[in-house]
């Protein structure tokens, strides 16, 4: 009987965090020798589900079955006993140890109470061979590329006889070649009886690799696709839950004169490249590119966090000297950073104090005394205007959902009425509803004459929201596309380094 039961079954699993319902009655089935792709927007609950399967977090309710038998997964060791191993998005390896020591970390073979290095490395060589990695186990991990380190992590999972490998965005920091190697390893493992749950945003990869697709949206099942049904539009429709054109409802409105002009800007991360572009009043400019293309660094340099090596920045035609966020704010710039919890918010402070933070200096009374009335006023206005869902202005920011946290960060800046809003991955990790609100807000702000420059790794978002798209590749701007020139293919061509042919 157990032969016919699926390898892994998730039944009606629920999980809540303070302020967020992360998962609601999720079902998932994984068969033997299968690659199941799990897709969904950021914040759809994929990572939470995977953490539950890996024993990092217990579910609130629901059941997990392995070979048809209910299992209790409370800890990582429970998961490993059940044969489930998670390959983390951020690798969980110690780069000060050797490859072999990483594979057997916590399970070191011992002789006379001491680590039996010889046996450890011999065993490590065997599992490394299974993932096609030909390195000496005595090599320090830090000498391996990220792609190879990932294979070490997979080898580690195999060494504990994992039957289910969960891979969370494994290709996000891999080169094209490393990605191909990884795919070969995954396919090989599948043929040898290992099952893989593969989480990715890259629908192209999903199409190539997956036997079946499960789509999540807002913590719920949005639908499954069998191998034959897997195509790009079908996946997007299930992820977004409606037609894309409707989702990114842009209205055309007149674009004003030039607000920001950048001439030959060089960032410390990519000192060899010069960036030049313009942003106009009332215009939404998207910045597309692969992860690591230098987009965040460009925003950081504009905002005075990173040092500008050369080049000029002009606002309203006047050259400006911006060497710190203080000066950037004085010139009417605002930055909603990529890492909300590290750079955007003081998560342990209240909504009120976060909204007020950037305006403290501007609003201060004589002698540097706080202007609490202004802070109260701004907070109330932003809670209303941005529809921030919070029990009150004194709620501590960390108890808000990602989307509402992001609105607090945006509110902090809008209270200062900036002229140029820089947004770095503004919808990362927030739910679909909040996403839509942020899109509408961007639209409204542009309509009011604000210039918006936003970086996004989600192609649909860039294409849907931008009047114009700047595409970057390895630190350089490889081209600009007007709204009517936009296509997924055109953006990807530029994002992978092919220059736009000179306008005919």
């Amino acid at each position, binding site marked *: 009987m157990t032969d016919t039961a699926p390898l892994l079954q998730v039944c009606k699993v629920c999980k809540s965090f303070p302020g967020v319902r992360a998962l609601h009655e999720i079902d998932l089935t994984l068969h033997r020798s299968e690659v199941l792709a799990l897709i969904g927007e950021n914040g759809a609950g994929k990572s939470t589900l995977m953490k539950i399967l890996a024993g990092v977090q217990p579910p609130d309710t629901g059941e997990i079955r392995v070979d048809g038998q209910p299992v209790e997964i409370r800890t990582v060791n429970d998961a490993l006993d059940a044969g489930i191993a998670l390959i983390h998005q951020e690798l969980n390896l110690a780069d000060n140890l050797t490859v072999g020591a990483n594979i057997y970390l916590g399970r070191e073979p011992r002789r006379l109470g001491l680590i039996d290095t010889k046996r450890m490395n011999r065993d490590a060589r065997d599992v490394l061979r299974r993932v096609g990695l030909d390195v000496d186990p005595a090599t320090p991990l830090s000498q391996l590329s990220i792609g190879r380190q990932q294979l070490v992590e997979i080898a580690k999972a195999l060494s504990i006889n994992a039957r289910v490998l969960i891979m969370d965005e494994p290709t996000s920091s891999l080169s094209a070649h490393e990605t191909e190697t990884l795919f070969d390893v995954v396919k090989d493992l599948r043929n040898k009886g290992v099952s893989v749950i593969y989480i990715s945003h890259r629908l192209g990869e999903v199409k190539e690799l997956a036997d079946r697709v499960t789509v999540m949206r807002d913590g719920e099942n949005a639908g499954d696709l069998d191998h034959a049904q897997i195509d790009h539009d079908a996946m997007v429709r299930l992820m977004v839950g409606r037609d894309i054109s409707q989702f990114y409802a842009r209205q055309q409105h007149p674009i004003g004169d030039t607000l920001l002009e950048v001439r030959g800007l060089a960032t410390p991360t990519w000192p060899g490249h010069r960036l030049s572009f313009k942003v106009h009043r009332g215009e939404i400019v998207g910045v597309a590119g692969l992860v690591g293309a230098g987009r965040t660094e460009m925003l950081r340099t504009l905002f005075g966090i990173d040092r500008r090596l050369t080049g000029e920045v002009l606002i309203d035609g006047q050259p400006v000297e911006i060497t710190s966020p203080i000066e950037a704010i004085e010139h009417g710039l605002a930055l909603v950073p990529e890492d909300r919890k590290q750079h955007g918010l003081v998560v342990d*402070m209240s909504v009120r104090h976060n909204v007020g933070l950037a305006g403290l200096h501007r609003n201060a009374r004589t002698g540097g005394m706080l202007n609490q009335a202004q802070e109260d006023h701004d907070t109330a206005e932003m809670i209303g205007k941005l529809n921030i869902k919070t029990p009150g202005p004194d709620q501590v920011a960390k108890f808000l959902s990602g989307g509402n946290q992001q609105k607090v960060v945006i509110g902090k800046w809008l209270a200062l009425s900036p002229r140029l809003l820089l947004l770095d991955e503004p919808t990362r990790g927030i739910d679909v509803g909040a996403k839509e609100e942020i899109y509408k807000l961007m639209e409204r702000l542009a309509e009011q004459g604000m210039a918006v420059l936003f970086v996004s790794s989600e192609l649909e978002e860039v294409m849907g929201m931008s009047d114009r798209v700047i595409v970057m590749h390895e630190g350089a701007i490889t081209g600009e596309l007007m709204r009517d020139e936009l296509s997924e293919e055109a953006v990807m061509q530029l994002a992978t380094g092919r220059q736009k042919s000179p306008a005919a």
Partner: protein
Amino acid sequence: MNAKVIGITVLLAALCVFMMIMTYDSATGDIAFAKAGNIENLLRRTAMYGILGIGVALVIISSGIDLSIGSVVCLSGCLLAIFLSVTYTPFEGEPIAQVRGADKTIVLKGDVALFKPGDRIRYWGGRRAGNAVVNVTAVKPGVSSDGGVVTEITVDQALSGDDTYGQVAKVYAVTGATDTDATVTIRGAHADLAARDQITLAHPKSGLRQLTITGVTVDSDSTTLTVNEKPGGVTNEWVATLLERNQYMSIPLALLSVLGIAIGLGLIHGLLITKMKMQPFVVTLCGLLIYRGLSREIAKDQPVGFYNEFTDTLSPLATGKVTLWTAADGTSFGIPYPFFIMAFLMIAAMVFLNRTIWGRYLLALGRNEQAARYSGINTDRVVIVAYVICTALAGAGGMLFALDANSISPSSFGNFFELYAIAAAVLGGCSLRGGEGTIIGVVIGTAVMQVLYTLTVMLKISDRLEYTIIGAVLLLGVLADEVFKRLAAKRRAVLQARAAQPE
């Protein structure tokens, strides 16, 4: 009010009640703990340690640490004593180069025109030659063995030995002395004498008396001095040497100099931590070592102090009090002055932390320095200000501790004070993660530590256990806080889960 502040206040109250019960003497009905003297002492100690605690609390809120406080306290105390050091030098006197006793000769360095034949002079301060009052018979220039110019004075009596130490000064005949109003009249009009200068009264054979002048009346050929004690038995046979009081710095200048040096040290700490990105622990640990050594060096590892020089001026700042009532037996109760200083600083710090943008910056950057920087806050400047305030308060506290102790030894003064201050801040609700803490909590935390100290003394627990008790209470306090926090988080999670549960 903040839950942590309530918690620590309850702890303080419980400790005080416990102490009152334990020190109740059923035979006499006395409660030793509640005696005026003890309460005053507690207030004074709480005030002085509290000043240090307030400073370190601001640094801890910035998510830093200052380990140098104890050494800054010591350095400030030593500097204040040195800046206010008082010396008495004779009017119309000179240090000697050499005394040749049998030759009746005193040799002075250089060409000295001060003494003439017929002058009476006094020699003192020798190691082998005794003090003497003699008459000058001749003065002539000479040459020393190394070729320098000297002045050789011949006197009418042999001195009791040869010497290279000591000094000589003119003496003036005492023409009168009264005990009723404590005056001494001497020959000559000495208009440059002033109150707080001293006179040495010497009898050629027997007595020697050092008196401090409190008033001067100059006549045409005599000067009448009122002095600090009755001259008693001084006759016309006595002579007087006049000593001028020299204070190295004026009191305001000394206070400002010490404060300025402390601020300078804080500035250095802050700059190293922000601009050079050094760790606060390391920077201030080095400070702890450096300033301790410097203190011992400038004080030559000898105790330094204020003697009785400032009992009416500066010392009461630390030792005095505002008397509230006096009992029939003459004992009184009052609020010690340092308590007012601390209260003022406490209120200023509370306003700074809660009502100014700087305080808000400090709270924000203490929790998330990056987010504060991204919000356009000059985080470096705020951190530097926190370190400057911390060492400035350590400097101010150090001066009060030194004035209170009156004499301090540079090798031990202020030892462990940084740990007292940090412990009080933590007990009072500061988190070493930064961004969290209240000023009032820190002051109450300091009071708890002082009551604990009193506990070891009054309950006759061996003072060897003092640190153990303070450490244990601190540990339990932080543990209790953590337990409460977890309970609250658990309750919140349950409530949230219930609220999120679909109907």
